[in-house]
């Protein structure tokens, strides 16, 4: 165990990609680190800014309004594509939520226009006839041999299709998932996670927050730490309430 640990979070486009209270995720990670004596650093990275992938352990990108997301897509490809790819290859943790998730793929479709994405994973997001996929959602996720439930809320017009051989994050238990058809939700590859469970999903799923913290610390310190348990009574109750909401549809 490393005696003094530090988690370095990079918040991508915090002013543009924050529509569903994404800052709740960062707040949650910050407190859970600080309560354990782990130093927590947040660096904000906005339009036009570049970053050094070696200096960050956990990258976060949330969802935005259509117009913001379009501007972000262009900027991401122009100024950050190589750095994000290197961070992923080096084993940094990456959580991309909702609109941020769509931008990881080859392309996504918006108002009849196909917008180029980061091309980091083999997926693309298209528009198909039918309503937006909105509602409480629960998926089963197996990151380490012990399956767990991720519960949250989804609200997306786009349908995401994974390429052959690309691994979804989980199997839909309640709700719609990537496209409302194939029963899968999100994507994962290396330590990257993309999901439609939007906004503050970590407060409802403390286990995923701790997984990301451990992965980030492993990236920084070269060793995966055993995290000190916290009093998670409220966290567990909030998880159960979100799961109940998903079960009731």
């Amino acid at each position: 165990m490393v005696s003094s640990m530090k988690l370095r979070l990079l918040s991508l486009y915090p002013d543009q990609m924050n529509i569903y209270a994404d800052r709740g995720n960062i707040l949650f990670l910050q407190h859970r680190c600080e309560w354990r004596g782990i130093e927590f650093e947040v660096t904000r990275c906005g339009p036009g800014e570049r970053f050094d992938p070696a200096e960050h352990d956990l990258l976060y990108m949330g969802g935005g309004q259509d117009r913001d997301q379009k501007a972000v897509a262009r900027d991401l490809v122009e100024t950050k594509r190589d750095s994000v790819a290197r961070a992923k290859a080096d084993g940094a943790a990456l959580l991309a939520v909702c609109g941020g998730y769509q931008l990881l793929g080859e392309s996504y479709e918006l108002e009849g226009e196909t917008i180029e994405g980061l091309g980091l994973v083999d997926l693309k997001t298209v528009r198909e006839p039918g309503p937006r996929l909105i509602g409480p959602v629960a998926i089963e996720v197996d990151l380490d041999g012990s399956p767990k439930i991720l519960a949250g809320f989804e609200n997306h017009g786009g349908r995401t299709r994974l390429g052959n051989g690309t691994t979804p994050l989980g199997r839909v238990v309640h709700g719609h998932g990537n496209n409302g058809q194939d029963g899968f939700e999100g994507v994962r590859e290396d330590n990257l996670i993309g999901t439609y469970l939007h906004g503050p999903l970590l407060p409802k799923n403390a286990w995923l927050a701790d997984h990301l913290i451990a992965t980030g610390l492993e990236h920084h310190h070269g060793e995966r730490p055993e995290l000190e348990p916290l009093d998670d009574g409220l966290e567990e109750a909030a998880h159960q309430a979100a799961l109940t909401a998903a079960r009731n549809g």
Partner: protein
Amino acid sequence: MIRAKAALARSVGRISRATGRGGGTTLPGRMLLKLDSNAIDKLGAGLTEGSTLISATNGKTTTASMLATILAGADRHPVHNRAGSNMTWGVATALLEQKGDEGLFEVDEAWLPETASRLHPRTILLGNLFRDQLDRYGETEALADAWAKMASELAGQTSFVLNADDPLVADIGNSSGPGTVYFGIEDESQALPELQHAHDAKLCRVCGHELTYDRAFVGHLGHYWCESCGMRRPTPDVLASNIVLHGMSGLEATVDSPEGPSRLKLPLPGLYNLYNALGAIATARELGVPVADAVESLASMKAVFGRVERIQVGDVSLSILLIKNPAGANEVIRTLALEPAPIDLWIALNDRIADGRDVSWIWDADFEMLAERVGRITCTGTRASEMALRLKYAGWPTDRTTVIDDPEAALDSAVQAAEGQLFALPTYTALLDLRNLLADRGDTERYWEG
């Protein structure tokens, strides 16, 4: 035919109320719209002096109530959906059950274009657009687009009263044509120290460039301009300056207009209520009421259902403040921060359809501002545990926080623990539950009797 259908629907409302089943503010309208989908057009045509529609994310009910107070001061009593039921069936119910020659309707943001196309209103007042229930309304930009389209269709027939300080709303003036009236705040001393993070108007509606803010007063409402295309906040026709806030008890401000200055003494707190008052005054002026008269009428304004309402429950004075989205909750938090500590709270978070199924928004509201000032906290509602979790991560004391799922048990516990004063912060359906709960116990009347 419409008269027979209306009579039938009216009797449904009477039966519903007489049997104590509730829903008296929507049921007759729902039934009538089922019988005749054009009922609003037909009944609305009977309003010979025309109608006024009010929409906004926050403050619809209060603003409409302010305008009703001003009109009552001029002995005018419009048909008004005063219980806050603001979808088409709420408008239809008011049209069914009240007589009058002018209409005053608050209308849900998403239902506004359809309601306007049916009523051909004389005046439309648009107050603000904040992120709210994205699962139901979609993005604020999309709502602003829909409103702009409506304004271009009504230009020339309907006069628009717009909040100059909200760039999403002021932009409607580019579609609504000449004669559009603006209101705003001019007092620099009331500016927020910094822009809030739950910020919904970052980009210029004209060219898409990032907006520059000289100052903001409430959320993204403030003084802004675009460096790229030169777009600027319109100059308000009705404006407030020399503002003095008196905590929860109200505020004073000087209201200027082409009619000259008047000193407003408003018995409702916060700059958000000043915006509501300015909108009501500017609209009343369009409807022929002098500003000085409007300002005088507002001095006797009462709080409306669940908006800074005070009720005595046993030995405790209960103040009810609706919370439903980050911007509105932040203003409630700012107002509460002016109260003496410790502040005892009953907070009810529901995730029913009318609340928005998605409770993500609580993570965007700045509960941190009260962390040092709260006393005992009781969380209740369908998502009580997530509310308590949010407060834990806002630095509120977990050892003084209780989660009780049942709202009535939670209220009893909170009242018992409170020291003289208790603040209730319910979401919309939790507010209805609370009000009925208090009515059942004889603490207040049922809201549709109000």
